[in-house]
């Protein structure tokens, strides 16, 4: 087996901090080769059965370098299939995924209606890198199902997004006849499936966000150290130092919460934790562009890529407004 620290070292070597935006397909191949999809897979299913903190370590390693390789959606898709005990050929699906087949979960909601004949029409949003997927795990309308992307009535449509580090797709269904054998959960089983996936999604997105935030802060401090104005390094200006320090505090607190939840996600909902992580990511990147001055305004510098990824992360699997309200209601009820 492997410790968390070893995994972190391995991830750092596979996706070194100074090589931003590693090529998606090579990154995905590396992920598959390293066996990262199997890290959290239960031992009974052929995996290592490690905790959610390992998934967070890997998500962070990819977030830090703005990777396009879609490990997070893939792990969530796998989680859904693992949790679908009644799925026909469940072991086969797991085997194929661990072998590198990409079957992501959608990270935005769908607007799909069922026709009289049970055929589905509508749009499922938030599918990352769908061009490399054979199927998706689609959660919408109180059910989770596998959908083959080459089935009749299924169209894969790329959506242009501001985030330049990833590619996002809609899956459009037109009178798509769902295969009952590919149903993962519906009715009463859909809620436990959601509650199983939600903390995993929130932890992974928070890890992506906080690793990105730390990278953006490090990049900013380095820039301020190197850039001189009025005959001194910008990093010598106390107002900038204090703003960097405040950002560091916010990252540290959100990061501590992330790892506390990753070690033990059970006691409370994780949504507001993810919202906090994304709020910190946005705050850090907003300041990072300002710290970089003119060059931060241009596409010649990488700074804006963090800003854009932060903005998208904030919308995935629940916005801050939604998630904080849920946390507030929960806190009020206790």
């Amino acid at each position, binding site marked *: 087996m*492997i410790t*968390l620290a070893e995994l972190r070292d391995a991830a750092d070597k596979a996706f070194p901090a100074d090589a931003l935006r590693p090529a998606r397909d090579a990154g995905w191949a590396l992920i598959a080769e390293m066996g990262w999809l199997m890290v959290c897979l239960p031992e009974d299913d052929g995996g290592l059965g490690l905790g959610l903190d390992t998934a967070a370590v890997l998500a962070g390693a990819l977030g830090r370098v703005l990777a396009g390789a879609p490990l997070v959606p893939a792990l969530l898709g796998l989680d859904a299939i693992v949790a679908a005990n009644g799925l026909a050929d469940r072991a086969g699906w797991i085997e194929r995924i661990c072998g590198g087949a990409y079957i992501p979960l959608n990270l935005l909601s769908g607007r799909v209606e069922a026709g009289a004949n049970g055929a589905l029409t509508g749009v499922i949003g938030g599918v990352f890198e769908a061009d490399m997927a054979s199927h998706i795990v689609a959660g919408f309308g109180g059910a989770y199902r596998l959908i083959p992307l080459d089935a009749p009535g299924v169209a894969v449509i790329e959506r242009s997004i501001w985030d330049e580090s990833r590619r996002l797709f809609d899956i459009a269904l037109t009178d798509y006849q769902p295969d009952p054998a590919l149903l993962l959960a519906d009715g009463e089983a859909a809620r436990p499936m959601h509650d199983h996936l939600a903390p995993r999604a929130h932890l992974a997105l928070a890890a992506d966000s906080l690793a990105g935030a730390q990278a953006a802060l490090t990049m900013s401090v380095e820039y301020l150290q190197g850039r001189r104005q009025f005959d001194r390094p910008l990093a010598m200006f*106390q107002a900038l130092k204090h703003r960097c320090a405040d950002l560091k505090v916010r990252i540290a607190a959100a990061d501590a919460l992330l790892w506390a939840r990753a070690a033990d996600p059970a006691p409370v909902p994780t949504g507001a934790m993810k919202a906090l992580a994304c709020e910190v990511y946005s705050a850090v990147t907003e300041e990072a562009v300002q710290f970089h001055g003119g060059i931060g305004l241009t596409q010649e510098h990488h700074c804006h890529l963090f800003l854009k990824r932060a903005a998208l992360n904030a919308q995935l699997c629940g916005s801050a407004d939604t998630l904080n309200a*849920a946390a*507030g209601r929960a*806190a009020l009820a206790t």
Partner: protein
Amino acid sequence: MPVRASASAPDNAPVITGAMPLPLGRGGRHEAAMSADQNLTRLRSDLRAWLAANAPQGWRAAAQSHAEFAASQRAWFLALVAAGYAIPHWPAKWPGGGRSLAAQKVIYEELAAADTPRLLLSFVSTYHAAATLMECGGAAQQARYLPAILTGETWCQGFSEPGAGSDLASLKCRAVREGDHYIVTGQKVWSTMAQYADKCLLLVRTSSDGVKQAGITFLLMDMKAPGVTVRPIHQIQGDEEFCEIFLDDVAVPVADRIGEEGAGWAVAQATLASERGLTLMELSYRMRGAGHRIAALIRDNGLAGDAGIIRDFGAIMTRVDATCALADRFLENRMAGIEAVGDASLVKLSYSRMLRDFSLLGLRVGGMGEQYRAPIVFGDLNTGNWMADFMNSYAWTIAGGSDEVQRGIIAERMLGMPREPKGWAA
């Protein structure tokens, strides 16, 4: 380093190589650790049982006069001494001492969870005075002063001075040696609970030569000695947690000097390093425990259906959780010996800002009701008297190294940004 799949992995599983150095994934715990865990579990259950029978009730209502507050603090401290929970950080030869930092953490967690009074009055005695005596004191000094702490002799700290602020080493309080005494004249300020103190950890200047740190000497002063005048500082929320101490030709025996003359600055560092991060963890937990006060106010004021208030409450409580997690992590890193420079500043700054924002939410939710002056609870931070709590939060953003000082430490020592230039030509 790729990870190895289990033997049942299918043929088309990814290529797997590499070593497997440790027996188990989640940290490779040893037998000793398992045993320590069991001890902690037992400590926790014992303490819970004891607290269920012995935790003071109604102390907030009682702590609305200074005299009753001091009396209840003394009684609670002595009860904890007797039960063996007051000085877990002292060596094992003392009753209830010799506990690990992990065990100390358990104790403070449980004291917070049971909503017992904070150990404010005895804090300087059991941490600062004890550490100073144990690390730097002579045998006679230890014999005279350490046991007395456990019977209720109370210490205060005489470090800060008016005009020095965060620049502690620029202190001016002057001590002149005359025979076997030092004659001390000067003024100290921000001395917590000095009005109840029997003894004082005193920093004085015995020389003005060399760098300002070099002429500082560390004395143990009797607060009942002639020439000592204590004046409580009237804080803006009505508490009197801090005092000024006026020293007018106070004679302190040379026997009560700690370390050599002029070596007081190093002793003071040992004093200040004696609290190892438990306080902020305890206080963060107590803040989280007080979340129900805001929840009750939301309900009472008919705001449970207000989407904006509910959302802000959720976000604030999540940040409180994060503050707790950061304090936890800090302690864990200390226990593991991997604390980094600046970590303590992260925890302090995170807590102080959170305390401000927490009280501001209470103030907002409470509305006009908070503007009517209500009795304060001495020595407590999240009392539900939100205007008082709000003002009390400044004690944390200003004292003990202000937020501004902490930001400087984080920027310079943690982020590696340049230090403030020393030789400014204005």
